[in-house]
């Protein structure tokens, strides 16, 4: 065992070893800069959720002291948390960015999309997203998807080619070797780019803590009127809850993910600080999607099916 001990000392004393957060940050910055160098009209999907907030933070660092050479795109389901929309608008203002909005409500109002019986609007985002990508001629679309989130995402590339219908074909993916990303695409096609591919939920939170990044308040424990559906705490509101037989109660909760109100659940929590959130996640026995997303529980391949059709 003596030989092993000497190896470990070498590891810890090496001045050139990067911490895992530094390594992940450097990798993500490299991805942003590759896209800036190779594409004409990149856009960052920005929802005001923690992953998109971390993406924007990394993009700001990658190009400082110059401005971020990308615009932002929010697919607005019409069922957003007001705290998150507020955060979105303040952030856009603060950094002098340009925000595109694709509105699900608009599509419903003019009859291009129909409300689903279960009230969930997550699957409805794909069409407005695809049409916005086409009309604005975006050629690279940054998403905050992580491979640790979901098994269909575990096999996603960092540069993921989409056809003109935004469709994903997992069998036609390009092998990604070394750090040589291949962004070639035909006119009308685009590339989804995932700079956080190798991050875990815990990495995202540790990075937020290390960098002192501000988040919408709903990520921290607060009192909220909620009701239970499919084993999740949903926020009562105009979007369609509670229904008959569901009772509203006030609970101390926080959100682990932030998406459409109709399918994003809160978790019981008293974590009011970043450190408390990190400790809570490190001890959690449920994945964030398992704990908080109704739409991923629909079937074994729910995410793969949505992704094939062009979902983020």
């Amino acid at each position, binding site marked *: 065992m003596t*030989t092993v001990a000497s190896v470990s000392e070498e590891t810890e004393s090496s001045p050139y070893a990067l911490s895992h957060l530094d390594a992940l940050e450097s990798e993500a910055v490299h991805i942003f800069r590759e896209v800036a160098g190779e594409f004409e009209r990149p856009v960052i999907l920005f929802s005001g959720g923690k992953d998109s907030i971390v993406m924007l933070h990394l993009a700001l660092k990658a190009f400082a002291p110059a401005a971020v050479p990308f615009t932002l795109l929010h697919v607005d389901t019409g069922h957003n948390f007001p705290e998150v929309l507020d955060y979105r608008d303040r952030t856009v203002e603060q950094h002098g960015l340009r925000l595109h909005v694709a509105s699900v409500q608009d599509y419903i109002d003019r009859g291009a999309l129909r409300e689903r019986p279960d009230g969930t609007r997550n699957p409805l985002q794909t069409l407005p997203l695809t049409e916005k990508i086409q009309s604005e001629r975006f050629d690279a679309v940054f998403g905050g998807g992580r491979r640790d989130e979901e098994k269909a995402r575990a096999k996603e590339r960092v540069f993921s080619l989409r056809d003109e219908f935004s469709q994903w074909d997992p069998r036609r993916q390009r092998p990604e070797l*070394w750090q040589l990303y291949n962004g070639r695409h035909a006119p009308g096609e685009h590339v989804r780019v995932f700079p956080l591919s190798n991050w875990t939920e815990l990495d995202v939170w540790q990075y937020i803590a290390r960098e002192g990044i501000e988040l919408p308040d709903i990520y921290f424990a607060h009192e909220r009127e909620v009701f239970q559906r499919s084993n999740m705490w949903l926020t009562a509101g105009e979007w369609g809850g509670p229904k008959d037989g569901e009772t509203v109660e006030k609970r101390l909760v926080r959100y682990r993910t932030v998406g459409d109100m109709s399918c994003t659940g809160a978790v019981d929590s008293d974590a009011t600080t970043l450190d408390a959130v990190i400790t809570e996640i490190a001890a959690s026995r449920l994945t964030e999607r398992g704990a908080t997303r109704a739409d991923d529980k629909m079937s074994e391949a729910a995410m793969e099916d949505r992704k094939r059709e062009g979902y983020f």
Partner: protein
Amino acid sequence: MTSTTEPTEPLSVEQLSATTLLRFATAGSVDDGKSTLVGRLLHDSKSILTDQLEAVERASASRGQDTPDLALLTDGLRAEREQGITIDVAYRYFATARRRFILADTPGHVQYTRNMVTGASTADLAVVLVDARNGVIEQTRRHAAVAALLRVPHVVLAVNKMDLVEYKESVFAAIAEEFTAYASELGVPEITAIPISALAGDNVVDASANMDWYGGPTVLEHLETVPVSHDLAHCHARLPVQYVIRPQTAEHPDYRGYAGQIAAGTFRVGESVTVLPSGRTTKVAGIDLLGKPVDIAWTPQSVTLLLEDDIDISRGDLLVPSKDAPPTTQDVEATVCHVADEPLTVGHRVLLKHGTRTVKAIVKDIPSRLTLDDLSLHPHPGRLVANDIGRVKIRTAEPLPLDAYADSRRTGAFILIDPADGTTLTAGMVGESFAAPQPVKDDSDDDGWDF
């Protein structure tokens, strides 16, 4: 090291942010117990969560399996589940108190060589599995050859199913000796052989009570302690320029920075640097490390270099120390792994991406194809099909500053792209296939298997 094997105790915030990152790849087949080994690493490090396990249990039960099939954790694509196979590299993530791990889990069969090559291309370490009852077989030699070709710095030979050979030291020693001799001859710089039983848990996370004769690390202990950074003093420093940062604002009217990820070695303020392929020379005036000025930066940091002179530099150029510049050339000789379904042929017109530069190129010759199982050469095959390894000669439209892959994995590597539809065709490594055979060392300067 007991703390690493204690899955119930959450790590402190300080512990969590002080860890390093290890990228490693596993090669082997279901028959070797690879899924069991990976499953145990994930499970015992608390990386499989309750809802994931329940989903796997439900899916396994619906297929009539008694025990949860851990392959279903990431064989997430419909086609994979339907056919019960892994068709792609699966990336898995887990952490202990000491390290964060990115595992590229690759299928072991010959038709998936491209996946193994993909997984090994970014790996610091490769785990090759063998069944103790079968010893070193054709597949084992192929896996060793891929690790050697891709210059993976550390290789672990996990001799699995020791419980089925009565935990005999002689069985392990014979396999370890044969593999080490073979892999060393191919130039693998460090080989660590570990006797395990993934099913019984011997030497995976916890030390085995059944093999007193073995005094080395368990698989997880080795993964946690193997060095991830190399002796940078002997590395060529290389910075492929990705993007030129020019704010042109009132606050920064003259700022001009060259952004990129340091591919190898270190850069220092004050150092003379040369821009390739132009050959112009200047000095490093400053280094921005993502908003923080530093005097020195090293791989794999993403930085912005500020230079003393205002010279013409753009994306695709390579910054190197003036005293250590590689030659530029339009004639590339390389070992390649063909990764596309369409074959690569002599006369093929392609795009070649090296670092941040993409140039037109033509395949001039395919002198040989290599069989990885026995390293036999087949001269002038005419073409390479998917999963073939071969030697190629390529002529590029513009000169490229190429390192030998043996000297620099990132600046000695390239990909070939089909200009018509953008398909990634081929993974290339500049220079000779394998390192020169090294004398088998018997002194104790490596952390071998001192059983």
